[in-house]
């Protein structure tokens, strides 16, 4: 039966407080950012209306030279997260679903690093990977693997893969937990029926378990995408605000940090607001698109 008009009216009434809070703390700052981006600034003082001048500055010349590689690195991080972290998360979840004992303990242990602040993780790994004093290279040399004792974070070829590896180390517990929960929701009978019909373990996984994990995969993909696009703390701790070495770990978050806080430019507020608006629009738009594609498939 349809809800009566009066009930719907009163239910709207109850939404007002939440809506007001949302407007005040989410919509209003977003619109402020948007308005900031169309002005030139003198420090913290708003100057003249600039139209799209700040956007033009972002999308031309030396700024664009930094923007495009940074965006590319965000995408590489996303790809790495999907391929390495989420695949490993799924593997761990599957392995743990069969574990008879110690499942809880192992789950907690795998998830533990993601309770630690990424800045701390980053700092820890710079110490571990330091080519002068770090124990990682010392261990590699001790094991006779001198060729692998490299400046992992100091070589542009290995820096980003190292960041992906550290991100995986920290976050693998997250997809593992989500996949574990989703696996727990798949009735045992499906697999049993398939096995009775002669399916082997691989076929059961590929044809039954994996398709049923699709909703969880969709959620994890979207969260990984947003996480990869917004990453800041870990890369900042590992490579500083310029994405060392030679910009190999530069991402949009660092670019924003430099534009807003590190340039000392008189119009830093205008440029950085424009960048923030671009980033928000891009991430929001891509996420909507991604969700639609994933929904349709599921």
């Amino acid at each position, binding site marked *: 039966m349809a809800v009566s008009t009066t009930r719907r009216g009163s239910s709207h009434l109850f939404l007002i407080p939440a809506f007001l809070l949302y407007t005040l703390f989410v919509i209003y700052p977003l619109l402020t950012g948007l308005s900031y981006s169309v002005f030139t600034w003198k420090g913290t003082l708003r100057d003249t209306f600039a139209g799209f001048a700040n956007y033009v500055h972002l999308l031309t010349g030396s700024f664009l030279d930094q923007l495009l590689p940074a965006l590319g690195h965000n995408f590489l991080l996303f790809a790495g997260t999907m391929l390495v972290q989420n695949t490993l998360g799924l593997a761990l979840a599957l392995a743990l679903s069969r574990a008879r004992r110690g499942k809880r303990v192992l789950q907690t242990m795998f998830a533990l690093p993601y309770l630690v602040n990424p800045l701390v993780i980053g700092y820890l790994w710079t110490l571990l990977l*330091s080519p*002068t*004093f770090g124990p990682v290279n010392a261990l590699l040399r001790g094991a006779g693997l001198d060729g692998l004792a490299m400046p992992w974070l*100091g070589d542009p070829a290995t820096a980003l893969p190292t960041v992906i590896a550290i991100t995986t180390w920290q976050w693998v517990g997250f997809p593992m937990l989500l996949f574990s929960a989703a696996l727990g929701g798949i009735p045992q009978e499906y697999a049993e029926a398939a096995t009775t019909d002669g399916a082997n373990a691989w076929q059961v996984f590929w044809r039954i378990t994996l398709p049923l994990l699709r909703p969880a995969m969709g959620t994890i993909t979207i969260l990984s995408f947003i996480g990869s696009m917004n990453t800041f703390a870990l890369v900042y701790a590992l490579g500083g605000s310029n994405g*060392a*070495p030679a910009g190999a770990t530069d991402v949009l978050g660092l670019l924003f940090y430099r534009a807003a*806080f590190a340039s*000392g430019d008189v119009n830093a507020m205008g440029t950085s607001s424009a960048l923030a608006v671009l980033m928000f629009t891009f991430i929001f738009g891509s996420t909507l698109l991604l969700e639609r594609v994933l929904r349709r498939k599921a």
Partner: protein
Amino acid sequence: MRLAPLAAAVLLSVAACAPSSPSTPAQSQDKVTLSVWGWGPEENFDEMFAAYEKLNPGVDVDARSFTTSTEYDTILATGLAGDSGPDLAWLRAGPKIQPLVEAGRLLPLETADIPGLKDYDEDVLRSAKGDKDGKVYGVPFAVQTLQVIYNKKIFADNGLTPPQTWADMIAAAEKLKAEDIVPFAFGGKDDWMLPIVAGIFGTANWGGDAFLDDVRAKKKKFTDPAFVAGIDQLNKLRPYFPDHMTGVSYTDAQILFSSGKAAMFPGGLWELNFFTENAKDIDLGVFTPPAPGGGPGLMPGFTDGSYGINAKTKHKAEALKFAAWLASKEYGQLYTDTLRVFSAVPGVTPTDPLLKEVSTTFDKQGATYFMNEFAYGNPSSQTVFSKALQEMLLGRITAEEAAGQLDQSVATWL
């Protein structure tokens, strides 16, 4: 995550209002509280300002220190924009004060109020001026110099003395390397160190201030062979830097030197404090790399910061009087002796023997540190060039290409 620094800044500046809020009614009649913001250890301020409070019983100077440097800029900008700002504040040198100046947050200072200003060297004072109006907005407090710090014991053990010629320096580095000692503790991972070290080894090549003036006047470019040769010195010295140097961080380099594994550390004068604290048993010496073409080299230096007055201060007269004291020799002496760095106040001689030595060299062979003069733009030319030097040390581009990137970036704002 991106908003975290901003949020932290806002929170801190809100928290900062508390101590600088109007004094209690009982006090307000006779005692004025001047709040001062800065960076660096707070106890240093307390110690220095106690002297002023003794001279001026009616004034209570309340110093507040913010340790993280990038956040300080945001905290100060937020504080000065609102009503929670301090009466006086440490300001950065050169480009970074322009946003505050152009927003009208600072009080222009006149020699009538602060007589000490007229004695300052023009180069020192320039770092506290508004680029557009040419007015002075701060009383400069520190001058930093860039040079090579060395471990006297390691030098003596290997029969070495501070080099008189470039060839001497290379021979010394060779000898140390053969003894398994890292000649120069220098990391390329934290790229902000790269222009500093390029300045230490290269300034003698391009000849310092005259060259910088020519670039500013667009008569010369950074792709000038003299400048390219200067930054190319880093490539030539590479064998004497630590292995895998682009992966070696600034802190690693400090530890290499303080643990006695490295003999020399090219860096700023501020390192002396760190090494004195963390390597108490190391006897420190300093030298300026000799000019590659023969003769003594050049020691780059820059003004590190200045005291500015909030345009909205409620105690303008007291703040100006305090600023006048900050421009006095008395404060300069107190500053150099307490913090063990150079005071920007003219005519102050440091008591510390090592500082005294640096001071004598700087008087004779001083030059302007190039990067601070060209750190404008967004992205800042400093960021662009730091990254270019890193690419150069990674062997991806040549010194000439690195200089070309600096030119390109400078052309966006010069």
